[in-house]
């Protein structure tokens, strides 16, 4: 039996395509972006250090806060600036709100239709929209804007954030706790397709998503078996290369390991020394952990559980945050050039920014590795495993069914194409 399937995957951020070729026992899946490369690394080259975060936050409208934060971190460490704890906490809060917003939109609008829920179903849509509105409002209050933030620069916040604003955000978030749990009940009641993860390697920042302060390099990154200390050696650990006949770059861990990063990886690694969790969440994570390790589809479970975790954590950190402690550090006059690395957890996983500045504080080299580039190979291998499983059963004979399952799997990963095509070169 020889089948070739091509599908433009809709309901993901950006335009992408999955190519499936089945030839007897051999199954090959290629996941490619259809969008044009936008080469942000070269756009920021030659620009002053303070321009960079504004530019690179436009890499992706879905996780612009993560890009904004990572680039600020990298530039701060290049310039030798150390920001205070309150600033880091607030930046982290912005990023977490964005993760929450992304998870809610992704699960509600993009994933649920795969499992028989329709946008016309008022019962869940109204809950979803309520949560979405509150999170958006909170993000707008803290981050200035929903996407492409502009509230802080390397060195600290530019805006004098008042305590009542934080209080309002806490009150706002407090009003949707039940709605979020309701949404979690809907998501966790979904029946996931069976699939064995072919490459159980999960990579995330140590202690993410709940503890991120203090944030400065070198960064400790947990994988399933090892712990890496990542700073200037990040390119040795995350290797980007062209694989097979694929048209875009894929990222592998050192030792050619295909890995996954994102909500599922964060939760698995978090349990290693997670503390300060409510009993509800501890129970949930412990209950689903075996599933996370086994089934790539369970990423959507992980997303909603992580949303609850972030929600709880945000309420805690924000209520104890004192905006009076926010201070701004300006870069000194003497600077002899240098580089900096910023690593944060974006909604979809690890995000690495690297900048090299000359003595004039202009960027001479920039490098960004986004989560979608990291896990796109994992999408391919798990899709291959999924199709092999389907072919073994009766269901594999139905091409449209295969297509539907593969698309659902891709969607469960929540790839973000605007991020992925930031510099990927197309092979001609």
């Amino acid at each position: 039996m020889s089948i070739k399937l091509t599908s433009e995957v809709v309901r993901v951020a950006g335009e992408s395509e999955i190519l499936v070729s089945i030839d007897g026992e051999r199954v090959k899946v290629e996941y490619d972006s259809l969008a044009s490369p936008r080469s942000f690394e070269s756009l920021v080259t030659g620009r002053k250090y303070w321009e960079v975060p504004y530019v690179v936050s436009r890499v992706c409208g879905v996780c612009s806060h993560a890009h904004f934060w990572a680039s600020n971190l990298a530039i701060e460490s290049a310039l030798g600036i150390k920001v205070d704890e309150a600033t880091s906490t607030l930046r982290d809060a912005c990023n977490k709100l964005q993760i929450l917003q992304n998870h809610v939109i992704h699960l509600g609008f993009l994933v649920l239709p795969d499992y028989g829920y329709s946008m016309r179903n008022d019962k869940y849509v109204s809950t979803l929209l309520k949560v979405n509105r509150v999170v958006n409002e909170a993000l707008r209050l803290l981050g200035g804007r929903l996407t492409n933030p502009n509230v802080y620069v390397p060195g600290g916040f530019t805006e004098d954030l008042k305590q009542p604003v934080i209080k309002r955000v806490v009150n706002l978030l407090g009003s949707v706790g039940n709605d979020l749990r309701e949404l979690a009940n809907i998501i966790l009641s979904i029946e996931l397709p069976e699939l064995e993860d072919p490459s159980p390697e999960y990579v995330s920042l140590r202690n993410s998503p709940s503890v991120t302060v203090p944030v400065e390099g070198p960064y400790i990154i947990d994988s399933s078996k090892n712990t890496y200390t990542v700073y200037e050696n990040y390119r040795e650990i995350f290797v980007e290369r062209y694989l097979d006949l694929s048209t875009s770059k894929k990222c592998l861990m050192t030792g050619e390991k295909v890995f996954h990063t994102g909500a599922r990886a964060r939760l698995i690694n978090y349990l290693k020394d997670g503390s300060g969790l409510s009993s509800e969440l501890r129970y949930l994570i412990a209950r689903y952990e075996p599933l996370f390790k086994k089934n790539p589809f369970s990423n959507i479970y992980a997303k909603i559980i992580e949303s609850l975790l972030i929600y709880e954590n945000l309420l805690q950190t924000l209520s104890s945050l004192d905006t009076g402690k926010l201070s701004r550090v300006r870069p000194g006059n003497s600077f002899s050039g240098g580089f900096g690395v910023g690593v944060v957890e974006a909604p979809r996983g690890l995000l690495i920014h690297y900048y090299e500045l000359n003595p004039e504080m202009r960027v001479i080299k920039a490098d960004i590795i986004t989560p979608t580039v990291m896990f796109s190979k994992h999408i391919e291998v798990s899709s291959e495993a999924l199709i092999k499983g389907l072919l073994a059963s009766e269901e594999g004979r139905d091409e449209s069914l295969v297509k539907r399952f593969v698309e659902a799997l891709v969607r469960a990963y929540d790839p973000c194409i605007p991020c992925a095509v930031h510099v990927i070169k197309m092979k001609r």
Partner: protein
Amino acid sequence: MSVRLAVVPLSSCDGCQYNLLNEEFLDLLKGLNVKLVSWPLLGLGDGAETYDIALVEGSVMSSRDLKTLLDVRRKSRVLVAMGACALLGGVQAWSSNSISRKLMSEAGFSRPINHYVKVDHYVRGCPVNVGEVIKLLKSLISGDLIYVGSRRFNYVNRDSFKISGSLLEIETSKCVVCGRCVEVCSLIGARALNYVFKGIQTNISTPYQESLESAGCVNCGLCFAYCPVGAVSLKTRTEDLLDKIREGFLRTAYVEPEALASLMESDNLELGQVISAIKQIGFTKVFIYSNLYEAKNSVGGEVLARSPAEFSILSKQVPEHSVYLLTPRIPQDSIYISQCVSWRNVVNSLTTRELQSLIRELGTEELDSERPDGVVGYGEDIIVVSELKDVRKALSNPEKPFRKIVFEACPGGCLLGGGQSISKYNDLTKVLARRRDMLKKITTGNPVSQDGERSVVNCLTNPTL
């Protein structure tokens, strides 16, 4: 019937779409009876459809984008460019250095969508303000198509206003924004006029549309002379003057040789015919008079301003040197006909252009040749310069400290002055050469003016003078 709405992504960060995904927007769609028929992010849409409104996000970077865009344009009645990428190409349109230019040429440059298709409306912002999108949709659906977002690009109704001074008036409704007045105004050193607003709204005005004099106008009249469409007008007093002549208050005309030369050149007349024509207007006596004659009162070592315009410029630009204005000393009952607009505020005067129109009204056929009643001129050692830098050069010459330096600000000197008559030739160099010939005819035997080398402005390639 419901309105069919499509949201179309091209190369972008998808941020604008994520901004739209909120309760307010989706509620509004329900309220306005809008049906979302295509939105790939939500998995909506199939091939064969038509849209009433399409919101396009992102710029065109590949043939795929272009295909999508052309397809959408074909299908949709109203196409809206949403966000900075669609409007202007977005950040990816930057090509700040060679590396990005090289990359871009491989991948395709980022272009705004109105480069390829007609765009009906624009919503600015990176990311867009959802309120603005909602406002646009509401106004589109209610049929009220006037919308703020389109103002920047659509030529709706340029605000027309008048800028006036004591002598000149600029009507922007007639202006075609050719920019000659701005050019000559900055050339002469007054810099009263400049461009205002941006893009298609560009207009010509003084700062904050204040009056010409307060903006620094020296009343040289060059904008009046160089305007091809008559947007700049001179507040004429010819009717007044004609009355005064008829009543016998004005009897004598003192005419500048430069003005005569200009009239002879432009209307193809002989000197005697011009004198006769002036007499026909009602003057009993006509003198050829050059105000360079007044230079005899100067002790030397100072700059002599040929007219009040030059006086204003010099007192601004070379304040360290004393400036002497060559005011014509003529009797009360006489009028001074000159090439300059700016005398109007000082003495009874008429410009050559006004004289030309008066003579043309009378008709130039059957004109006798008459001799002027007298010639007043000056032939001593004076230097005529027509550029500020030459003034400075002449002033800094240590060998001859007491020369009399006459400054004529108009490019080409007084022969191409602001109030001169309209020539039938467009080429300024040719006009100047012809007028020089005429001036020589007038001054043969009558040393009224020493003709120095005066530059013609090359940048004004096609003036209407």
